[in-house]
């Protein structure tokens, strides 16, 4: 589209081309913004990984393999990769087993309380992994863990039987925390499976068990496989739990290794070159997994058994077993809530006391009061609000525009925008964080809250764009054309037609972004300075100080804030889903 007003064209034509110019101008601006956001940091990361030891990016143009030689010469590297894979694999297997079991119960049986279970699972994103980890440390630490104390007095032991600081504990805790994510991805799969396929088996005389073995499971296998791949990918990037548990346990994984290289203990010098090389390695691993994931999705598309709304899911009648099932699911949620209860307890006393009934009458909000009096904390709270509002809103605006161009735009530019905005999905946040650190190290942006915004916008724009495209694709193009024909400009048609029609979706997506931006620890910690502390990083700092009640109080405030955002939406969605079935 290169038509412009030409010779002899009157003023009306001159004005008329504004729509095209505006549209193209915005598109080019968008392309530049995304290039700087996405490609810029990764390029600097690559350059840094190839620069000589001890040099910062932009300081040198020399090329050197030193960092990679270093990386592969270290015998620890093999152990590191092994740890990462063991950690990711173990927690994903646990999460999948639990999630498949619970999802089957909530979606395919008449278990009582299944709606509550579903809402709880979907609301779990309000609990940051960091907070979950601290809760477990309170529960099972060897010195005064509540469960350890209980077991010691019950069994008459001298030593604490449990500890969070082993690989097994790390895997168990991460697996438990990952289960809701796995559930969210799997429940739709189970719910939408056409029961006719199963009924056909039953009608043909097969037993329930044969049907499960030969029809249900094989049909679900590709879906479960692709969900598993996706989860492994998220877990090799996971940072929060390996940091709060794994570092004390001295079980480094790739993500925490990048962190310790870039922000060493007091006195050490950061080794950005080696951190960048690790980052590139993690990026390669994640990209390979992403490729495998998309391949497996394509395979599972072939097995698609989703057939729209034209059927009523067949629920298996469990009989009396349904109470057993409900009890088992309740036990799972009890285990999930224990650490949160322990944290809540810790936040109710100015000094941590091991929970007993007698103490229950001396609870107070003193810890909250004390911690909120700290100016650092107050500043962090303001920063958090700024960070989540700015990044979520910017991501929405960028995603809306990118999805418009990729669906409605003419020519290749739209597709480029689409690819560019989607590519960060393969970049682990920890890698993006180190890359952004390297790019902005020497700029005034480095110590500001702005750099956290940039980081969050970059990593979440992929989610935002996918989500917006899936919504925009359902809006008939004629609705927009009707506005243009009525004389509206492109911007007016976006503002008056597209945005209002997408509004419920935009709100949902915005809340997701706010929740994830608020709970993220990777960027706040990797890019931490005295002036850009936010909720997650200040909790980490206060815990480390150590001020346990303060950290617990802040955790509770963060969780409460997130729940206010997340839970109402989940309850509304669940109600709507119940009505539709």
């Amino acid at each position, binding site marked *: *589209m*290169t*038509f*412009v*007003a*030409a*010779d002899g*064209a009157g003023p*009306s*034509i001159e*004005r*008329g*081309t504004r*729509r*095209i110019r505006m549209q193209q101008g915005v598109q080019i601006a968008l392309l530049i913004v995304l290039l700087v956001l996405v490609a810029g940091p990764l390029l600097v990361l690559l350059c840094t990984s190839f620069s000589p030891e001890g040099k910062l990016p932009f300081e040198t143009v020399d090329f050197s393999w030193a960092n990679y030689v270093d990386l592969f010469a270290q015998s620890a590297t093999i152990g590191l990769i092994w740890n990462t894979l063991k950690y990711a694999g173990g927690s994903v297997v646990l999460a999948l087993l639990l999630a498949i079991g619970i999802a089957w119960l909530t979606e395919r049986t008449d278990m009582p309380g299944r709606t509550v279970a579903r809402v709880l699972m979907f609301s779990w994103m309000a609990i940051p992994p960091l907070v979950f980890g601290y809760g477990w440390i309170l529960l099972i630490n060897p010195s005064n863990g509540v469960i350890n104390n209980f077991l010691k007095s019950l069994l008459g032991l001298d030593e604490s039987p449990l500890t969070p600081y082993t690989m097994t504990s790390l895997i168990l805790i991460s697996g438990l925390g990952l289960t809701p994510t796995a559930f969210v991805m799997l429940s739709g799969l189970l719910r939408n499976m056409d029961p006719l396929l199963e009924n056909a088996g039953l009608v043909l005389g097969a037993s329930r068990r044969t049907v499960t073995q030969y029809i249900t499971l094989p049909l679900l296998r590709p879906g479960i496989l692709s969900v598993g791949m996706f989860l492994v990918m998220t877990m090799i990037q996971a940072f929060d739990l390996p940091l709060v548990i794994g570092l004390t346990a001295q079980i480094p994984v790739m993500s925490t290794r990048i962190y310790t290289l870039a922000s060493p203990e007091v006195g050490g010098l950061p080794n950005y070159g080696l951190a960048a090389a690790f980052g590139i390695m993690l990026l390669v691993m994640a990209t390979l997994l992403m490729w495998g994931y998309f391949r497996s999705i394509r395979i599972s598309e072939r097995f698609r058994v989703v057939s729209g709304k034209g059927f009523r899911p067949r629920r298996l009648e469990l009989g009396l077993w349904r109470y057993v099932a409900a009890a088992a699911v309740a036990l799972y949620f009890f285990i999930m809530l224990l650490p949160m209860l322990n944290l809540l307890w810790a936040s109710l006393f100015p000094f941590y006391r091991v929970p007993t009934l007698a103490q229950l009458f001396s609870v107070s909000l003193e810890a909250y009061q004390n911690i909120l009096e700290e100016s650092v904390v107050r500043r962090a709270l303001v920063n958090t609000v700024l960070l989540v509002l700015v990044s979520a809103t910017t991501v929405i605006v960028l995603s809306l525009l990118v999805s418009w161009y990729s669906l409605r735009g*003419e020519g290749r530019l739209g597709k480029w925008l689409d690819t560019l905005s989607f590519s960060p999905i393969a970049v682990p946040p920890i890698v993006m964080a180190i890359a952004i650190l390297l790019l902005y190290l020497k700029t005034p942006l480095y110590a500001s809250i702005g750099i956290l915004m940039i980081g969050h916008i970059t990593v979440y724009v992929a989610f935002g764009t996918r989500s917006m495209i899936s919504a925009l694709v359902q809006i*008939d193009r*004629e*609705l927009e*054309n*009707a*506005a*243009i*024909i*009525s*004389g*509206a*400009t492109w911007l*007016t048609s976006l503002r*008056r*037609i597209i945005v*209002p*029609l997408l*509004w419920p979706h935009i709100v949902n997506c915005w809340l997701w972004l706010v929740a994830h931006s608020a709970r993220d620890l990777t960027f706040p910690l990797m890019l931490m300075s005295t002036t850009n502390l936010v909720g997650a990083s200040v909790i980490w700092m206060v815990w480390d100080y150590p001020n346990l009640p303060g950290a617990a109080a802040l955790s509770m405030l963060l969780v409460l804030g997130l729940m206010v955002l997340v839970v109402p939406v989940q309850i509304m969605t669940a109600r709507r889903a119940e009505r539709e079935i």
Partner: protein
Amino acid sequence: MIAVRDLAKSYATKHGNAGVNAVSGVSFTVAKGEFFTLLGPSGCGKSTTLQCIAGLETPDSGEIEMDGEIVFCSRRRLMVPANRRNIGMTFQSYAIWPHMTVFDNVAFPLVHSERARNDIDVRQRVMRTLDLVKLADYADRPSPHLSGGQQQRVALARALVHEPALLLLDEPLSNLDAKLRDAMRVELRQLVKTLGITTVFVTHDQLEALSMSDQIALMRAGRVVQLGPPRDVYLRPATAFAADFMGRSNLIPARVVASGAATEVETGFGILRCAPSRAAVGTQVHVVLRPQAIRPLPIRQAGPNVFEARIDALHFLGDAFEAQVRIGPVELRVMLDVYLEPGIGQSLWLELPADRCAVVEHTAEDDPDATTVAR
């Protein structure tokens, strides 16, 4: 009012080939106040042509003139975008904005247009237009709470409220049920004729085209194959495709034995006199004959173009019998009076009036199997 000259538009295919020609070499003019119809089967390029006139698609080449102003010209690289063209348009899906009331939908062109003027009374204009489409009582309704026919009227009101110079209608009746469609057909034509607004109408339904238009452009595979008033296009089809598309017709393969004013052809059942034609002697042609053009004779009459036929099958349609008859080796369809109680196997005499037998050239693309349709 509008002139379209040598319009061409092609779409890139998935595999990155040269692309499919959606429209090529389309030219026509529409006089002021005329009701002009683009008619053709799906994929013939009629909608693409309309979108090009609207400015929603950019043609590859050609020129479009509107109200004396060039709005598109590939040679001068000039393109006036849709929102500057002063047109009204209704869409196949109606495209009523579901988040607005009926009033807000109709008021949109007055409020949010680039051309919006401050000196007009929006409320009065909208209500006047809603009155025109008999929806004044529905102004404050949320637009999803409307029936298909009402949505159609809202779309029409929205297209007319800003008094555009040109009205474009993209298959406006195709989503209505049959009864409503019949009523709307009459109403729509009356409305635009009273307003005197120039209208370009796209449809695949020949009945709509015949009953509503002043001019029809019959399109096929991206080209205009015949252009003229409805009666002409129906009675004097230029090609076998035109004949077939405009309604049921008998296509009799034949060879020309005499040309000019007294055209005669040789068919499977003998020599047939036809309407004057310029087809050269010896060429293979089709004779087009509508079923209702054939005159059944009560008794045998001698004369040219009278043949004996035998009834093979009968379909009772209510107001007539549609009979499948055979003259020698040639099968024909003919309409018979329901009160005559014809029977299968009966013989009867048919007159094929010469002035109703149109000769059309036989072309390769008339073979139904060889038809390629651009999409």
